[in-house]
C-alpha cells in the first residue's frame, strides 16, 4: 500500500475502534443497569474488537509515516486508548474478574478518541529533527503508558468515591432502621464487615457478584494502577530530561510541559504518601488522586493547546 492508502486505512480503523468502544461502553453500562450476563460478554468482545482495530490503526499510521506512530497529539491519543483498553481488559476483567467498571473506563477512552479526531487530526508525516532521538521514543512511550495507567486509576478512584458515599449512606440508613432503597438497585448496600478505607486486608472481590465492586476493592484496584503508573511516569520524566539535555542543552528548563509533568508527579507522590499515612487513607487520598487526574489532563491537553513552550514545536 502507498503511504496515502495506509493513512486512509489507519483513519478507517480509528473510526471502527471509536465505534466499538462506544458499543462496549453502552453494553457495560447496560450490564450494570440490567444485570444480564450476555451484556458483560458483549462489552468484552466488542471492546476487544475495538482494541484490535485500535492496534491496526496505530500500526498502519506508523507505516504511513515511516516512523514510530507517536509524534503528535492525534497519535498520542490513539496510543493512549490502546494502552488503557489493553490494561483494563487484562488488569481488571481478566485478573480480577470485575466487569462492572468498564462503562466509565470506555467513556474515558471514547472521550479521548473523540477529542483527538475532532481537534488534533493531522495526516501522517515526518517529524522535526529535534524530535528524532531514541530517547524521544523512550520518553513518549513511557508517558503514554503511565498516563493511561494513572488515568484508569483515577477513573477507578472516582468510582470509589461514589461507591464509598453510597456505602456510608447505606450504613447510616441501616443504623436508622430504614429499609434499603428500591431505586438504584445496581448499588450494593452491603458493607464488608471490617472495612477500613485504604486497608489492603479488606475482603477480596467476589467473582460472581454483579454490581459495582465494594469501595475497598475499588480503592485497592485504583491504588494498583496508580502505583504501577507512577514509576513509569517517573521514568518517562527522566527520559524526557535526558532527551532535553541532548536536544536543547538543558535537562530541565521549566518549560510548561516539564513544569506540569513535575506537578503531576508531585501530586501522585502525595497520593502515595497519603495512602501510607493513617488518617489520610481513603477519601482524602482519593481526593489527592483526583487533583492528580486534573493535573494529568492539563499536562496532556491544556499545555499543548494553550500554553506554548519548546515542546509545542512538536506541532
Amino acid at each position, binding site marked *: 500500500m502507498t503511504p496515502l492508502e495506509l493513512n486512509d486505512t489507519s483513519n478507517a480503523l480509528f473510526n471502527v475502534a471509536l465505534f466499538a468502544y462506544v458499543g462496549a461502553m453502552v453494553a457495560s453500562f447496560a450490564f450494570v443497569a440490567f444485570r444480564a450476563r450476555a451484556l458483560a460478554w458483549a462489552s468484552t468482545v466488542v471492546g476487544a474488537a475495538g482494541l484490535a482495530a485500535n492496534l491496526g490503526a496505530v500500526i498502519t499510521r506508523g507505516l504511513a509515516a515511516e516512523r514510530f506512530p507517536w509524534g503528535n497529539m492525534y497519535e498520542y491519543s490513539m496510543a493512549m486508548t490502546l494502552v488503557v483498553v489493553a490494561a483494563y481488559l487484562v488488569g481488571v476483567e481478566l485478573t480480577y474478574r470485575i466487569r462492572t467498571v468498564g462503562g466509565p473506563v470506555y467513556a474515558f477512552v471514547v472521550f479521548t478518541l473523540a477529542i483527538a479526531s475532532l481537534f488534533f487530526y493531522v495526516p501522517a*508525516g*515526518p517529524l*522535526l*529533527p*529535534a524530535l*528524532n*532521538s531514541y530517547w524521544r521514543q523512550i520518553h513518549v512511550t513511557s508517558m503514554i503508558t503511565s498516563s493511561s495507567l494513572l488515568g484508569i486509576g483515577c477513573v477507578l478512584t472516582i468510582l470509589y468515591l461514589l461507591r464509598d458515599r453510597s456505602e456510608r449512606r447505606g450504613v447510616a440508613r441501616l443504623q436508622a432502621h430504614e429499609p434499603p432503597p428500591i431505586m438504584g438497585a445496581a448499588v450494593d448496600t452491603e458493607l464488608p464487615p471490617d472495612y477500613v478505607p485504604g*486497608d*489492603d*486486608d*479488606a475482603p*477480596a472481590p467476589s467473582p460472581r457478584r454483579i454490581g459495582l465492586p465494594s469501595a475497598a476493592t475499588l480503592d*485497592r484496584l485504583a491504588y494498583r494502577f496508580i*502505583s504501577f503508573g*507512577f*514509576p513509569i511516569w*517517573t*521514568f518517562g520524566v*527522566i527520559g524526557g*530530561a*535526558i532527551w532535553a*539535555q*541532548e*536536544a*536543547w*542543552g*538543558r*535537562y*530541565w*528548563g*521549566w*518549560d*510548561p510541559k516539564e*513544569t*506540569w509533568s*513535575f*506537578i503531576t508527579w*508531585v*501530586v501522585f*507522590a*502525595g497520593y*502515595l*504518601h*497519603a495512602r501510607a*499515612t*493513617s488518617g489520610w487513607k481513603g477519601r482524602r487520598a482519593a481526593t489527592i488522586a483526583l487533583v492528580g487526574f486534573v493535573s494529568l489532563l492539563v499536562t496532556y491537553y491544556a*499545555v499543548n493547546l494553550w*500554553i506554548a*513552550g519548546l515542546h509545542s514545536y512538536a506541532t
Partner: protein
Amino acid sequence: MALVWRTLRSMRTALVLLLLLALASVAGSLLPQAPNSPERVVDYLADHPVWGELFLRAGFFDVFGSWWFTLVTVLLFVSLVSCLIPRSRAHWRALRSRPMQAREIDAFKRYAERRVTAPPADAAAIARKVLRRRGFRVAADPTLPALAAEKGLVREAGSLVFHWAFVLLLVAVVVGKGTGYTGQARIVEGETFTDASFNYAGQLRAGRFFDGDHSGAQVTLIDYRDAFGDTGVPMDFQSEVRFTSDDGATTRTEVIRVNHPAVFDGVRYFQFGFGWAPVVEVVRNGTTVREDAIPFVQRQTAPEGVSQLAMPWNGSVKLPATDDREPSHAIELTLWPDGRALAGFVQTGDPIPMTTEFDPVLQYTLWEGTLTDLSLAGLDTSGMRRVADGLIGADQTVDLERGCVVGIAPAEDRFGTACDPGAPAGLTMRFPDLRQFTVLQVSRDATVPYVLGAAILILVGLLPALYVSRRKIWVRADPDGAGSMLKVGGFALQRKERFEEEFAKLVDALATATGGASAHEREMVGT
C-alpha cells in the same frame, strides 16, 4: 510512639512543602516567565498594569528563580534530611538485629497448626531451611524449638534509597545551575565566536555562584547546512565548526546537529537555531563605511497554518553622522532569501516557505534624522524621515538616496528602476553575498552526571519501595506423640490479600517438609 508521631508530622510537613512547590510551579507555567520569554512579560505588564506590578514585585515572572521558591526548596531539603536520618538509623538497626521471637503465635492475623511426623527439634531445623530457601531472614529461639522469620526489609531500603536520591537530585541540580551558565552564540559562516561573557550580548544566563570563568574557546563556523522535506518540514540542521582552545594548543573540527551536541573544554554546544546574514557594503561619499555580514531576525510570526519559513527576515544598518551638521542615516532591510517567495507573495498573496537561497532580494528603506539607539537591536525610526526605498538583488548596487539601481541598463532591471547614468551617488549600498548563521546553545553544567545518577537511584529505590511487602512469620514445634504439632503464625504489613495465599502455601511447604500432610492430601482424607 513519640518518634512515629514525629515522623508522620514531618512527612506531612514535607508533603505540604512539596504541594507548595507544585502550586508555585502552576503559577510559573501560567504567567510568562522572564528567563524564557521576556517579550511576553513586557506585553503582560503593558496589558495588566496593576496585577503586573504586583506579580513583578512578588517575583511571579521568575518563579523558579525567586527567593521564595528557593526557600521552599531549602525547607523541603531540611525536612527531608531531618526525617531521613532517624529513618536510616532505624533501618540500619533493623538490618543488624535478628527477628524477634514471639510467645503467643496463635494471636497473629494468620495462624495455622499441622500435625507432623518429625520430632520438634528436627521440625524446627527443617522449617528453618524451608524459610531460608524462600528468602526469609530466620532467627532460632535459643530455648525452644521455635523460629522467628521476616522478609521484605528491602522495601524500606528502597524507600530510603529513593528519598536520599531525591535529596541528592535537589543538591546536584542547585549546585549545577548555580555554578554553570547557558548562553546563545550566533555565528555567521566564516566568522568566529569566543566563549566570553561580553560576546553573548545579554543572552547569557549565569548561575548565582558562577565565577565568570568562561572557557575562552573559539568557535569558527565553517559551514552551515540544512535540509527540508517537500512541504518545508525541517529534516536536519547541522553546523560544521572548528574549535580552538584559549591557548591555541588544541583544535578540533566537529559537526553539531540537533540531538548531537559537541563538547569542548567542558562546555557543551547544541544546535539551536539558524538564520540568514546578508553581506552589505555601504559607501558614503566614496568611503566604505560598512562591509559585513549582518545576522537578520524574523520579526513577524507566521499566521496560523503558515510555515515560519515563509516569513521574511529583518535587519538594519545604522550610520551615525560623522559631524554634527549632518543628519544620521539608517537603512531598514527586509530579506527574502528566495526571491520567488517575494514575487509569489506580491502576485498571489500566498506565503511560500523559503528553504534555500535562490535569487535573494533585499527590500530597503533609507531613513534620515536622529538615531536614538546605536546598538545592534531594532531600529527606532520615530525621529526620522523616510528618504527612499526600493529593492536590491544579489550583486547589485543601489543609490540609496534616489532609490534606484546603479550601473545597469534600464532593460536589465528586474526589481526597481535603473538610475540615470552619470548622476553622482552620495550613499550607495551593494549586496555582494548572502550567508547563513547558526545559533548554538552554549552551556556548562558540571553536575549533569550526578543528576543522572540520582535520577537512576530514584527509580531503583522506587520499585522495591512500591512493590515489596514486609512479612513476618513465627514457627513453633510443640511435642505431639512421636512427632510434633507445628504452629505457624504471621502477618504482612502491605499487600495483605496476597499474603493470605502466600501464607497458605508456606504452611503447606512447612508441613510437607516436616512429614505432615499437604492441604491437598488433607482434603482427600477429609479432615
